[in-house]
């Protein structure tokens, strides 16, 4: 029955970080495989969709909410935090200020989604610009662990670690689901499940049938 459904899970992931760190570029590279030297600015919130098979036969639909980094749009983007299962905290490796903003971004999300949880991944972007690097790998890792997140360095331009980054975050969310830290509910759009895995089927066997009817 899993085979006939396009996806078994849907994770909503929000892209966070100062403007121009490369949120949209990374998404475009990941979902469309392209890289534009000059991207248009995101107004409000944009979205992308991608499918990933995290285990054999287990397909996840990733729904990305790409937020505008511009301060003026902060109030818009904030309303998308709550229904997110994953948060990609992005900074520009060549822009120290964007790295320093990460804590604020993280705090803002954590404060907004309480008591829900969001799985974070810290992403140092534009790793191709090694010469212009302003943020060291060590300190970024340190920050990530203090936020309870993993860290990865990516480049949309050179297509480095792009797949890996999204995989890390997706697996992280899946882990959280399996361990019960996170569970899909009707009121929450962060995670939707059509095929509850083992850990869940014990808890909520009725959910399976209900969900199936809807599709």
């Amino acid at each position, binding site marked *: 029955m899993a085979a006939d459904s396009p996806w078994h899970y849907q994770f909503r992931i929000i892209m966070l970080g100062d403007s121009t760190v490369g949120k949209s570029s990374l998404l475009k590279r990941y979902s469309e495989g392209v890289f534009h030297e000059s991207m248009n600015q*995101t*107004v409000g*919130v*944009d979205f992308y969709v991608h499918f990933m098979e995290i285990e054999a036969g287990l397909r996840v639909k990733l729904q990305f909410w790409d937020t505008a980094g511009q301060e003026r749009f902060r109030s*818009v983007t904030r*309303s998308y935090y709550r229904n997110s299962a994953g948060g990609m905290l992005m900074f520009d490796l060549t822009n120290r200020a964007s790295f320093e903003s990460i804590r*604020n971004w993280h705090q803002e999300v954590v404060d907004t989604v309480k008591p829900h949880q969001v799985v974070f991944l810290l992403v140092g972007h534009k790793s191709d610009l090694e010469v212009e690097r302003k943020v060291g790998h060590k300190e970024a890792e340190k920050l990530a662990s203090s936020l309870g997140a993993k860290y990865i360095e990516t480049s949309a331009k050179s297509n480095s670690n792009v797949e890996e980054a999204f995989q890390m975050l997706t697996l992280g969310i899946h882990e959280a689901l399996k361990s019960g830290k996170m569970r899909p509910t009707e009121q929450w759009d962060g995670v939707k499940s059509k095929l509850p895995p083992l850990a869940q089927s014990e808890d909520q066997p009725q959910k399976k049938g209900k969900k199936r009817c809807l599709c």
Partner: protein
Amino acid sequence: MKKQFNRMRQLANQTVGRAEKTEVLSEDLLQVEKRLELVKQVSHSTHKKLTACLQGQQGSDSDKRSKKLPLTSLAQCLMEGSAILGDDSLLGKMLKLCGEAEDKLSQELIHFELQVERDVIEPLFVLAEVEIPNIQKQRKHLAKLVLDMDSSRTRWQQSAKSSGLSSNLQPSGAKADALREEMEEAANRVEICRDQLSADMYNFVAKEIDYANYFQTLIEVQAEYHRKSLALLQNVLPQIKAQQEAWVEKPSFGKPLEEHLSVSGREIAFPIEACVTMLLECGMQEEGLFRVAPSASKLKKLKAALDCCVVDVQEYSADPHAIAGALKSYLRELPEPLMTFELYEEWIQASNIQDQDKRLQALWNALEKLPKANYNNLRYLIKFLANLTEYQDANKMTPSNIAIVLGPNLLWPQTEGNITEMMATVSLQIVAIIEPLIQHADWFFPGDIEFNLTGNYGSPVHVNHNANYNSMPSPDMDHADRKHSDQTRRPLSVATDNMMLEFYKKDGTDGVSSSWSDSCYIYPSPEDDKPPPYPCYSSFHHYHPKTGPCTRPEPHLPLSRWTGYSQTLPPSSSSSSSSSPSPQQLDINSNLKPYFLHLPKQNSLTEMHGPETNLSPVYMKPLLTLSKPDPLGTPYSSHVSVSPPWVSCTCARDRGAGLTSTLKTKELSPVSGQKSSPASGHVTPCGTVQQPPGPTQQLSTEQSPHTMRKGHSSEEQGIHSNNNSVLLTVWCPEEEPVDHHHL
């Protein structure tokens, strides 16, 4: 001894009631007697409490007294503080004013206390501790006398009785006489004492009104004191307020525009002018200016610095994003958007108009309705942004990009409640408002603008304020020294100033004495004069010299008579445009500024532009016309007749002005340099030479800059289509978004 014994016995008998006690006082006086004690008690305690109310040392003279007053020491402290801070600073001034006021208050207080002491406390003391005790003493004396009288009477009666019983009357006669005499004498003394006492007691009763008057006096004196103090305070309050208001360096962030402008006596808000001036110096080439987020701490610091008008331009020249961020913050934190709440609907409606010409017209109309302060500041800002787009190959900020980033900071609806919705849906409309404003800045806001208006980034007060730290330049000071002290006092202007010095050094002119405001133009460097990357990007700029506020041309007129660029213009338009410049043009042209006369590096510039122009004839740099050999050898005006028609369309004013600065030169690039002559009142279009559009085609498809731009700029279209998709998703964020990809 015996007498004393008798008195004791008499007293004892009277006390136990065996003997009759003579009451010499009337009933009234007995009442008074009781009252005396009460009044004494009350007066005593009142005096005590009242004395406790006095702050000054009692009994000492007023000088000594004043030194002990807490208020006096406060005043002293304030005055000393004022001396330390310098009464040129606002805080110092305030301390001084307050110190003076407090000192006067303390004087009033001393005066008041002295008066209370003299007119209330002293009399109360006398009443409680002298007058009433005296009466009471007399009363006791009277009692003693009465006792004496009673005892002598008793003895006399006893002796009379015993003599009567023993029946020998005579022998006892002498003794009885003595006793009677004693008795009468005692009665006499009682009489005198009683009268005296009665007089005192009646006097006391009669004087009750005087005693009551002490309290009236207290209140009166108190009222007078408070009245005087109030008058004093009210007197000083306007001074304090005036000081407060006169202080120009009020925080500007978050304050209404009008208030900030009127307080500071500025035309352009300080943060706007300061940021723009700084960005002109160090930010124009910065990639993603206004888009890239600055460091939060840097931004905070710069905002605070701008709020007190002290900006170290050197420090921020390395961080243009912080400057741009501060400018955005200022605009965003205005209580009312620069483009006003009132016109919000009108702006939005204008952006919804499909017809490009009509839309521009509608935007124009809305602009016209802006309050003067808002209009001036918006014009200033848009002119700067238009300027910024000329560096878009370096900074990558196209008009559309700038509009996306800055638009939401320039206009938002009054009902902030649903800012979320507003931002998502309306910000696109706002982009559609701001973008054309930037693109057609020269059409919307004809004329050139001086970006560094005040040059001096400290108000005069500010200069004084800093005089405590930097010695004021004295008139006989060396010129260079003064320059130096100016720099230290106005850190923002350091860069400009140095630049200006360099400028004049190169030019070989003594420009040190030139005004600050001249220094805003960036000295033209060869790199700056590269041809713009997108010759056709905004290849439409029409220009109407501003002859007066009421003569701003109707925008639809030039648009309807718009004709495409070609080497062979229709005779009518050619003749009209090549006719001699109108008086206005000449006026503007002849309005030469001091730096204009220097014509710095004119030759090198023209040399530089020569080849470029040959390569791409589209570029219509007026400099080209100057570099061409002038067959008639006449000054500028003759160019009109010998130049190609499109050159003649260029306003004579721009030819002159174009030499003065890079900014101008850039403006005169083909894309922006097209100016229509006011006489012809229409716009000269620009196309590529390789593809000269036919006249009919132009009329049908290129009615406005927008239609033309649309055709040329696929990138622009990309943005629009992209935005549209955003719009859809944002409208219904909770619904399942339409997947971009196959399912």
